């Protein structure tokens, strides 16, 4: 078992000097990101979030960090401990696509090498086999289920080569 995920555990003692307008712009261009400035910090998102009591930076705080252009947000445990349950997005009175924005942050963090190991393993597995898990044949035989339909892994790899799935890492981290 691992400890709570993420290097950036608390605001305590943290100093934020450089506010990056570029970063805020980058986040705003994500799917769902355009509404960033509408957040009025009501914290309703955090009130229903299943991990609010398990992270040090809650989701409403994350939203404010985005607006302030604090790139440290990518190191908060909220990014990878977000279960993607969409409760916050469903309830936000300002209609902000919070979860979709967090997906974008996960993508950005992944590229910079800030990510749990399991995701790196899953990426390789998806590239190699096109699946996350393999069928359990004896169970299927017992229940008289047919084989799972087949596909050509070359098709999948052709796509992933085009999207550059295996080389997402930004140069300076590579």
């Amino acid at each position: 078992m691992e400890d709570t995920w993420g290097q950036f555990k608390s605001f305590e003692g943290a100093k934020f000097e450089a506010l990056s307008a570029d970063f805020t712009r980058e986040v705003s261009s994500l799917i769902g990101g355009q509404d960033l400035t509408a957040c009025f910090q009501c914290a309703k998102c955090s009130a229903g979030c299943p991990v609010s009591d398990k992270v040090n930076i809650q989701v409403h705080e994350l939203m404010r960090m985005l607006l302030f252009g604090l790139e440290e947000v990518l190191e908060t445990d909220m990014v990878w401990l977000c279960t993607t349950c969409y409760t916050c997005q469903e309830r936000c009175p300002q209609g902000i696509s919070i979860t979709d924005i967090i997906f974008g942050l996960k993508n950005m963090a992944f590229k910079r090498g800030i990510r749990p190991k399991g995701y790196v393993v899953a990426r390789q597995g998806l590239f190699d086999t096109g699946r996350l898990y393999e069928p359990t044949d004896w169970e299927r035989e017992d229940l008289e289920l047919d084989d799972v339909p087949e596909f050509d892994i070359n098709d999948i790899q052709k796509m992933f080569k085009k999207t550059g799935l295996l080389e997402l890492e930004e140069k300076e981290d590579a």
Partner: protein
Amino acid sequence: MTEEYEVFLGCAIPNRFNNYESSMRTVAEALDIKLLDFDGASCCGTVVLKSIDETSWLSLSGRNIALAESRGHDIVTPCNGCYGSLKDTDHVLHEHEEQRNAVNEILKELNLEYKGAARIRHFVEVLYDLRDKIREKIVRPLTGLRIAFHPGCHLLRPSTVTGFDDPELPRKVDELLELTGATSVSWTLKLRCCGSPLLITSEEVATQILREKMESARDAQANCVVTNCPACHTQFDVQAIGLKDSAGESLELPALFVTQILGLAMGLDPEPLGLELNRISLDPIREILGIE
């Protein structure tokens, strides 16, 4: 009228919940729903790939949709993860021209194109439409069964994408379950995520969430948990094995799939309902379920 769908199984069901597929097929047959093989289906990508790289996820998932579309078929899936992934992809590709063009550029090499004609449904949506027919087929009432039904996140949210049920007060699957004479209890944390997506990041946090869920089910005096998703079921029927509260009391509850409950109440052959593959013992409710 026979309804016809290509059935998208995903990876988790054939890997560890073949009883879900088998019970789904058994119920589908009894209700005259035709399930066609989904030739060429890969992983849906799920929130795992979406978290890594949006374009790769849209491509993988878009390819699956385009395959069914090329054969003129609609899609049904019994998995919330696959459902969320397919619906969400469909939504993004429909709404965002830039992404649609990018994905179609990639699909072109495979002689496929996403146009958005295939309808994507969860198996419980199809069942809900057939509730009158199901009501007529109930022969073995499950009186005394107190179900903590866990709808799961991606069946309900974001409601602008799934559009299935009230996202804050869902009742549709509960209504199906109550056709059997069982009670779908109201429990405080019913709508809360099961925590399963965190198994890849932190098993510790995933388990904390599960413990909270199970305590809530216990407080509501449920005698079983029912799901319609293999990812959620991994929490309730695998990770919950041996789970205890802070006082050391067991938090295990029998965990079943919606299709197993309906199949039993419809008096269908118990063999293909696959109950012997449920991992947490069904002993406390065997009598109510009418199984040996």
